[in-house]
């Protein structure tokens, strides 16, 4: 008779499917996952400690370096929090430019996340298609800001540079290209029977479990939770933003939420380009003393900056809560439990788009 042994199955820290090092420790009965724990600590940076005592013009660059994939949102939330402390309001054109660059960054982050997922379920063709499409977005980011990642685009009171009508035209045609390509790729993804087998009904996170475990971002929105910090941001509400929500809560839903959010970002950029009027892009203003808790919506979910500044614009205390911190725990304690096969461990984990660099700051 076949003997069933309880196994402790380590996945990682070095694993071909992971972009960054972390270890998932699973307790399994055969292939069936009984419990899981995510172990971190391989890439701790201690960046909050380095930030302390430095002026905004230095912390801004450190904030971007918390995460290489979603660097713009860290710049965005950090600058908006010091702006709120000091009562600085960005000029109208600058506010729209911020949205454009932030949404481009979200697009490339979502495309990279979905690339990772397709790669994990061994659909390398689609994975490479998505990675190739991401390059179009990266090129647009480079065209506008001069750099692909760590763009350093947002400064208190405005942005670093304006976009000319030539750049706006190029951006529009790039968006049309992405729109057309991605529609085809999604058709392949949605109808693929093998993709469905690896994705539909796998790694289910129910709405109750998501609420209880404080899931954020696309992971929460794929389980039917209306949680998007952009809904309360003045520039986004002016552009008519409404969050993308799905109900299934499985791997498939999480990937589709990201795909739909790419289209949403395209729409937001298009309407921002329409709504933008000529005008100044910097309003000046110095940073005053104060403290704040300020939230923004990163590609992976809610990003929180809690900081204190002094009269000379220096950051005295800072704490950063990145979206992957709750999401990784949600993944370990709600999504991985009851996985039917050890092969699903990586795909479930990757479908929640974990960012280890963010989590360990």
């Amino acid at each position, binding site marked *: 008779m076949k003997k069933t042994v309880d196994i402790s199955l380590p996945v990682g820290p070095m694993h071909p499917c992971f972009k960054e090092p972390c270890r998932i420790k699973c307790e399994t009965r055969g292939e069936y996952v009984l419990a899981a724990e995510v172990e971190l600590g391989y890439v701790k940076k201690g960046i909050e400690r380095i930030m302390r*005592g430095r*002026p*905004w*013009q*230095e912390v*801004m*660059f450190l904030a971007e370096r918390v995460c290489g994939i979603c660097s713009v949102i860290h710049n965005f939330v950090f600058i908006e929090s010091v702006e709120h402390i000091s009562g600085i309001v960005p000029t109208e054109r600058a506010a729209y430019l911020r949205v454009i660059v932030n949404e481009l960054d979200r697009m490339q982050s979502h495309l990279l996340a979905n690339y990772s997922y397709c790669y994990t379920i061994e659909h390398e063709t689609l994975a490479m298609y998505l990675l190739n499409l991401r390059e179009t977005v990266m090129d647009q980011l*480079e*065209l506008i*800001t*001069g*750099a692909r990642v*760590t763009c*350093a685009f947002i*400064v*208190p*009171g*405005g942005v*670093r*540079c*304006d976009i000319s009508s030539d750049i706006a035209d190029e951006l529009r045609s790039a968006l049309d290209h992405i729109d057309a390509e991605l529609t*085809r790729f999604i*058709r*392949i993804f949605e*109808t*693929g*029977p093998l993709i469905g087998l690896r994705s539909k009904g796998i790694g289910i996170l129910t709405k109750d479990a998501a609420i209880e475990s404080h899931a954020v971002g696309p992971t929460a929105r794929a389980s039917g939770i209306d949680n998007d910090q952009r809904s309360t941001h003045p520039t986004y509400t002016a552009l008519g933003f409404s969050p993308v929500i799905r109900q299934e809560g499985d791997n498939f839903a999480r990937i589709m939420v990201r795909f739909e959010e790419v289209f949403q970002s395209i729409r937001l950029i298009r309407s921002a380009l329409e709504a933008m009027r000529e005008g*100044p*892009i*910097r*309003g*000046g*203003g*110095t*940073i005053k003393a104060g403290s704040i808790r300020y939230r923004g919506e990163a590609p992976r979910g809610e990003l929180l900056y809690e900081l204190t500044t002094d009269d*000379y*614009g*220096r950051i005295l205390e800072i704490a950063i809560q990145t979206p992957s911190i709750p999401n990784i725990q949600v993944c370990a304690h709600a999504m991985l439990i009851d996985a039917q096969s050890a092969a699903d461990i990586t795909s479930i984990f990757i479908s929640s788009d974990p960012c280890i660099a963010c989590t360990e700051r």
Partner: protein
Amino acid sequence: MLSIINYIREFLRPHWITTFFTAKTAPLVTPPHFRDFPELTDKECTHCLACMMICPAPEAITVVKREEIWRPEITKGHCIRCGLCIEACPEDVLTSGRILAYKKEEELTLQGTFHIEIDQSKCMGCGNCTVACPVNREIDPALRSSGTSTSDEVIMRVDTGQNKVLHEEKCTGCKTCEESCSNGAIRVARIVEALQGGEK
């Protein structure tokens, strides 16, 4: 079934077929708008130290005098290619990517005021910072040889064993003093504002 049709449609596109048979990697070129390490233009540097003041990376840029000409020098291993020095330089000495062009076009600038803090419990009165400060040395050349100053015009000087700040308003925020202090006793707060359209 639908899936197979989708794949066939994907691989029967003329664009797919032509790229499949004529696949060629495009040559790697750096686009002209790429924000690379700052390079020098032919403009003259006035040794105002605005570039050193704004630079977020430690010791990435230093303004040095070689063959009687002041010139900013960039340490590539330290520079993070942020481009702030290009925006801060009032004389357009530095350039990289589109930054210099849009800075001129839209009259962008970064301006700062400074506040010097000396932690007297850490300062041992060695005077390293007073000698290192480029503004001090220009005001009182005697500092270079003697290491002490009797001038009342300098930014700071060591007086009866303690470093005293006399003229904070002359500071350019270059951070040289911070780097020369072995105890980390001197801190220069740089209150920087991002502006458009010249002086406010």
